[in-house]
């Protein structure tokens, strides 16, 4: 079985389960409609899901995935608290700027996850990605440093290390 076929099968099962979760398992019409929709989805877009041929050390990755989830939840809570404090502050102490950080991640999916995580964490918003140089352009609401190495350390590394284990 080639990698694309396997990816399509996984997407078919997942999308059927999601459809069933949204409707009900007891209705035969819904089950059949779910099968048709899942087949369409997996035919049209199923080949994007898996890209590397081998999945190794699956439990280790799931473990790091759970660590990543909790780390992410913590950072999101912190981000919201900071923005809330900033917004109610009468003098608005902001120092915005667009800076660059470097990333060591290679795959498209992991860079996307890193960019999305950065957007949802304190004061930072990903504006663009340079795929050749592996750089992310980030709008920072409170720029503390303009040095690329320093910024990479402050913003990127807390997620990068965990994502390296989960996705790469």
């Amino acid at each position: 079985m080639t990698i694309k076929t396997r990816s399509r099968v996984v997407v078919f099962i997942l999308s059927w389960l999601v459809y069933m979760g949204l409707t009900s398992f007891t209705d035969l019409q819904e089950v059949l409609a779910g099968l048709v929709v899942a087949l369409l989805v997996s035919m049209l877009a199923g080949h994007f899901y898996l890209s590397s041929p081998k999945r190794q050390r699956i439990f280790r990755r799931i473990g790091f995935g759970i660590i990543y989830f909790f780390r992410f939840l913590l950072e999101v809570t912190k981000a919201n608290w900071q923005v809330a404090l900033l917004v109610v502050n009468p003098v608005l102490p902001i120092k915005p700027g667009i800076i660059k950080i470097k990333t060591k991640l290679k795959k498209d999916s992991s860079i996307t996850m890193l960019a999305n995580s950065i957007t949802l964490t304190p004061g930072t918003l990903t504006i663009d990605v340079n795929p050749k140089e592996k750089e992310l352009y980030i709008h920072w609401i409170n720029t503390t440093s303009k040095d690329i190495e320093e910024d990479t350390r402050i913003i990127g590394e807390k997620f990068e290390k965990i994502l390296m284990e989960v996705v790469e």
Partner: protein
Amino acid sequence: MNNLHEIIGLVFIGFGLCFDFFGVLGLVRLPDVYNRLQAATKCVTFGSAGILFGVFIYKGFADFDFKLLLGIVFIFLTAPVAAHAIARAAHRSGIPLAKETVIDCYKDDNELKEK
């Protein structure tokens, strides 16, 4: 305490509403489009997810549980992508940054356009 889950659910809904309010306040108070997006993505994402999660707990095991959780997942997936698209489009169409801005690397690199 048989309505404990209702109290916890209402607390979550209250938190969600507070953060939604802060997000909207930020949208009004912050200077330029990029800073406003910061408030719009963070607080509104967290607030809306909080409201959905509050309803999830409040209702206990209702038959739309799965829809609520799926809604939270989709909010967390789509909000950053939308913010990224809006910020990039704004920068490329030449919307100026606020006057407090200290550095703009994206402009220095010519917005990654080919010559």
